[in-house]
């Protein structure tokens, strides 16, 4: 350990650290643009200059290693003066684009202009003009004028995404960021450069001009694109998810997420195909009915089958709580042992960074929750053959479009009763007798368990008809707080949907059971009491970053069913 003094306070730090790291660990912020804890040190922005006693000149703290007895000043007059000078140079050719720049509101250059610059420009000459609206790749847009040449994006592409296609050309004020001829920034992690870029030079083509950042609320969530379960923020305006951004969690995804997860996992939440309330088949047509009628219909139809004629398909897309209540209702209320779920593995679509071939967030969780055949019960393959040979007559499906599977697609029409939980009218729902419109992951509380056993919470970001942002403790933007019925923006579209655990609880109680869950937290509490691997977990303990279940290695399908 090395003893160093920063701004008059003494710290014991690891001698391998640089000054900026030592300061960060001890809660002292040194302003910086080009340094990033996950990238190599480049030392080109000069914003992190500090004064070190016995050194003749100011030193860049990102590339100065701590030594025993070092005395660092981050707030001396010389340092403050240097910061102002660096800011002034950075702003000389920077365009006055903030009004049309998507970064505005979360821009480091804007923030530092308030904190560390002189507040006006002494530069009267014409600014250097450079290319704008350059498509760097399918998902990333570049505005070269806004670039401050920090090289973060270049280092990310080289060191983390392993697709070294970005580089600088020209010199001095004429530096231009560009891709090598004939290449595009199109690696699966390309969009991470958007958050890495400290300014609005790199922006999302998908989110382009959709909203100003201060108009949205952000809610901690989890990506459902694969079994990694990257931590995200869901950004919502007028009850609509407009973008997902990665959220730091060193145990799961660090600062990153993949483009597919970022772009493809939220649009269905606001899609036009969303169901608005349950559907029931009448005269061969699916018609909208109320919840009571739909549940009464399921109850009366289910009563017509023997226990062994019923099967249940759980879901690796559903939360642990939904799957737990599902298997409990199947086993204890309907009395069937034929419970399993369908895997969604895309062989080959996997790498050694984040992306997993299991394209669901929760296979491990579904197994832990008990969605697996009981003693002598049927698994997925046997359920399909059971439907085909007529021994299985009624099927209850939780949040999964099983008709995508050719085996099920051919078998479904043999069924006498098909009940489906689905947020949208997909192929399985189209074939169903009763469709119960369930909430998406963006509308409910719950937990997912990723392939490493990391159990993490999701929180509602979008309100359904029965929810109210203020009453139910949602994240609220200023617009949410002051909305009234007289504003068009105060009347966002809300769907009539309910979380699956609640639909199942209502169904079970209508059949005479006495389930007493008032919230998903109640369900999780029961799970943590009854399931060994979850012992000791509570929503409070899971917090923002989640916890690993105990004895992960015992979580193979065989070990769990044993």
């Amino acid at each position: 350990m090395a003893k160093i003094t920063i701004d008059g306070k003494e710290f014991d730090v690891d001698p391998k650290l640089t000054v900026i790291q030592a300061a960060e660990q001890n809660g002292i912020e040194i302003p910086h643009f080009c340094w990033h804890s996950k990238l190599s040190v480049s030392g080109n922005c000069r914003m992190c200059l500090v004064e070190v006693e016995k050194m003749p000149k100011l030193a860049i703290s990102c590339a100065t290693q701590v030594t025993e007895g070092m005395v660092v000043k981050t707030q001396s007059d010389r340092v403050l003066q240097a910061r102002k000078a660096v800011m002034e140079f950075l702003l000389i050719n920077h365009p006055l684009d903030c009004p049309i720049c998507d970064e505005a509101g979360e821009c480091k250059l804007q923030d530092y202009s308030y904190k560390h610059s002189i507040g006006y420009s002494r530069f009267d000459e014409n600014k250097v003009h450079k290319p704008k609206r350059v498509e760097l790749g399918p998902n990333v847009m570049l505005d070269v004028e806004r670039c401050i040449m920090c090289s973060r994006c270049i280092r990310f592409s080289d060191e983390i995404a392993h697709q070294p296609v970005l580089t600088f050309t020209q010199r001095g004020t004429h530096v231009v960021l560009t891709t090598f001829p004939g290449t595009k920034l199109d690696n699966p992690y390309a969009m991470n450069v958007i958050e890495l870029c400290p300014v609005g030079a790199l922006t999302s083509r998908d989110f382009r001009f959709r909203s100003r950042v201060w108009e949205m609320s952000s809610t901690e969530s989890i990506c459902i694109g694969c079994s990694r379960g990257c931590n995200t923020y869901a950004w919502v305006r007028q009850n609509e998810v407009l973008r997902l951004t990665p959220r730091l969690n060193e145990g799961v995804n660090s600062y990153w997420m993949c483009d597919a997860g970022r772009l493809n996992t939220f649009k269905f939440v606001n899609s036009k195909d969303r169901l608005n309330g349950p559907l029931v088949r009448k005269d061969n047509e699916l018609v909208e009915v109320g919840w009571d009628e739909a549940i009464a219909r399921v109850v009366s139809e289910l009563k017509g089958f023997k226990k062994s004629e019923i099967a249940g398909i759980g879901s690796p897309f559903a939360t642990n709580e939904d799957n737990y209540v599902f298997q409990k209702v199947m086993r204890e209320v309907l009395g069937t042992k034929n419970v399993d779920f369908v895997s969604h593995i895309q062989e080959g679509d996997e790498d050694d960074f984040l992306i997993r071939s299991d394209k669901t967030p929760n296979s491990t969780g579904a197994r832990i929750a008990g969605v697996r055949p009981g003693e002598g019960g049927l698994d997925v393959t046997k359920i399909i053959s059971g439907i085909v040979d007529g021994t299985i007559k009624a099927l209850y499906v939780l949040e999964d479009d099983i008709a995508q599977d050719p085996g099920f697609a051919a078998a479904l029409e043999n069924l006498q009763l098909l009940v489906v939980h689905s947020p949208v009218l997909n192929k399985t729902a189209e074939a169903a007798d009763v469709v119960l419109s369930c909430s998406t992951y963006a509308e409910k509380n719950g937990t997912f368990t990723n392939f490493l056993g990391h159990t993490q919470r999701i929180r509602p970001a979008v309100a359904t008809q029965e929810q109210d942002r203020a009453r139910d403790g949602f994240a609220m933007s200023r617009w949410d707080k002051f909305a009234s019925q007289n504003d068009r923006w105060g009347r966002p579209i809300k769907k009539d949907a309910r979380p699956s655990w609640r639909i199942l609880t209502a169904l079970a109680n209508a059949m005479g059971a006495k389930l007493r869950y008032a919230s998903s937290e109640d369900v999780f509490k029961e799970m943590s009491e009854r399931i060994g691997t979850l012992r000791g977990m509570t929503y409070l303990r899971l917090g923002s970053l989640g916890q690993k279940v105990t004895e992960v290695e015992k979580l193979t399908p065989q070990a769990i069913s044993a």
Partner: protein
Amino acid sequence: MGHNGKMIRKKDLTFLQKSYIPEILKGMRQTIAEMFKPKFTFRYPEERFRPNPSFRGRPVLVQENEVERCVACGLCSRVCPALAIEVQASETELEKERYPIKFEINMVRCIFCGFCEEVCPEEAIVMSNEYELVFSSQEEALFGKDRLLKSAEELKPRLEFLRLNR
């Protein structure tokens, strides 16, 4: 009034005071004198008040060469203390890159403070000289681009006033 509801007088009025005649004469004198002074009132609606450029009437959007100056930055919307303005941006081929595909002012919310005009980086929203605002429903009070756009020509006095008083 006293605490038990009876009128309290310091002393009884004189005969002249009781007759009201001196007070009536005083009033008549004021009326007749006013008849020969210049008028400040208008015979509305036949005659209308034409405010000078410093007046803050309803906010409007400046249109120049057939397009709005607005770049849909949303600053007016953010600064508006009454949350009267809703802006939705979209992309345009023009140099300004973005424009408001939707711009709506809820004239029931607007308090005519002029903050939007002050904050706008493009001089794209200004307070006009229009003060006649009548609605028969809340919906009617939501002014879209169709009712907000005014040519820069028409708004010249206000734009010049703003430039002089920056």
